[in-house]
């Protein structure tokens, strides 16, 4: 279990950087600055980041930005990317229309 307060103290305060407005998750339009800031608010895992900022929750489901977000979190936490807890995988693995998903299992009327 990570001691969030201790880790926050260790990594120091959020410092603005010139490329903070760089888009990282283009599907959900999340910037590098937002992700870095979120780390300083205690978001240390990809799973939490997805819920907090919606990075990796769009059309490509993090296929494009997953690795990038991971490396940003890692560098902010001053650890190697392998130490950042990855997001869990769950169905549907690919974007799917709600009406199709709702029909799964025999249809809504049954």
């Amino acid at each position: 279990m990570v001691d969030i307060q201790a880790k926050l103290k260790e990594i120091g305060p959020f410092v603005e950087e010139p490329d903070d407005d760089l888009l990282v998750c283009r599907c959900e339009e999340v910037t590098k600055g937002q992700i870095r800031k979120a780390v300083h608010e205690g978001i240390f895992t990809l799973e939490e980041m997805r819920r907090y900022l919606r990075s990796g929750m769009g059309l490509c489901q993090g296929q494009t930005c997953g690795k990038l977000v991971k490396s940003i979190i890692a560098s902010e936490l001053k650890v190697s990317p392998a130490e950042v807890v990855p997001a869990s995988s769950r169905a549907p693995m690919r974007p799917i229309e709600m009406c199709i998903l709702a029909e799964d299992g025999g249809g809504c009327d049954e």
Partner: protein
Amino acid sequence: MKIERYDMIVIGAGPAGLSAAIEAAKKGLKPIVFDENARPGGQLFKQIHKFFGSKEHKAKVRGFKIGEELLEEAEEYGVEVILNATVVGLYPEKEVTVKIGDKVKHYKGDAILVATGASENMVNFEGWTKPGVIGAGAAQTMMNLHHIKPGNRILMLGSGNVGLVVSYQLMQAGCEVVALADAAPRVGGYGVHAAKVARCGVPFYLSHTIVKVEGDECVTGVVIGQVGPDWKVIPGTEKHFDVDTVCLAVGLSPMSQLLKQAEVKMNDTKGGHVPECDKHGATSVPGIYAAGDVSGIEEASSAMIEGRMSGTAIACYLGYMTEEERDSRIDELEKQLDTLRQGMFAPKNRGKLVEKTDEGIDVSMNLLNKGFVTDDEIERFPGVTHQKGIHPVIECTQNIPCNPCQDACKMGCIRIGENITSLPAIDPEKKCIGCGMCVASCSGQSIFLVEEDVEEGYGEVTMPYEFLPVPEVGDRGVALGRNGQYVCDAEVTKVRIAPAFDHTYLLTIKVPNDMVMRARFYKKEA
């Protein structure tokens, strides 16, 4: 809710998935293969270049032909392939949910093979979301499947085999590749691939990365800069190029989420999130297997063998063959796989600087830093000799698993030997007849025929040529050196094509005698 049952469900109809299904079907299983794309074959149908390897591994066959052969074999053995079928869920009970049309269908397999392949990595820099910044895979899809030119002036980022091969294909499609950049200090892909790009005049910028992409509505330019040891751009090293397209070939990551979802034990590696597998591709969940790029990035040839291994293992797992039968087949396949994993680019050498060949020859550092072997360096390789009369000059300078040239020469001029990663050597005792079969058979386009004194003061160089329009006899143009720079004027004296050349033209140019060892590409004058 209806659940359909199958012996074997394969997710992904690429080289690994199809090979596995074929192998299992041969043993009497009834596999079903799902693929989310409209066409089967995975990446194979985008590959228009000749593959490396040995004869048994379909070396010198173009990728899309291998794809066609695989599809024919799948049909012959009754493998059912469902296209436009997106697998959205995989569960430890070996149940699969698939979106087909506007329905989600449920299937259960006695065994499941995940062969979902990989997706391209991204890097981000200022302007990376502008229209005109594309992945190398997208460029290949546009050119080779849809016959659309991705752009006119292109900068390629990435010097691995994907970046090199796609750069060459972009030029074949009529695009201008203005530069090839890579943040790494050395070319990552095969030297022969780099050399054929460099000799066309593409400058290589190693230790360089993209600073920003310019343009309002779309890409109009790109700035690259040299990176220091901390991977940050050194101020003052920026270079600007006018381009309309920036192509990214910065690696692949396994698409392994389905495996993770099925609670397979995963390992987080440098090469991505991969399942823990035994040598048959069996994961930690009994009955669930993985093969191809999803279990670690390699290339299509090894994916096909891995697929066949998993297909064999599954046939045994389901009782369609004995363990002895399985083991003997696996042994045979493992040997093939081992051959492909030899040489300088073997998985164990990834990221390492190999300074000497197996023969003890110093590797060309210019090849690694600039993409071409210099005129001085080329002389030390065993494929390069000076003889009276026509003879092959083989500019193959790294130990890679490939040997078609040896069999291509009926006169026995070319010797590789038992070990297919050895550098080809010329036997000066044997007489070259100038048939050009070696030139056309070399997947790396690294063989040239050279002859001095064809007429007073002039000699001839015969080179592989894969661009359109094909030059005609009598055309006058310029000869470029290995570095893509002008070396002399040249006249086309022969243009040969034959079915056995498989679309590689043999272009012969006349150049001054002292240029026969330097002229390596022909360009019609601009």
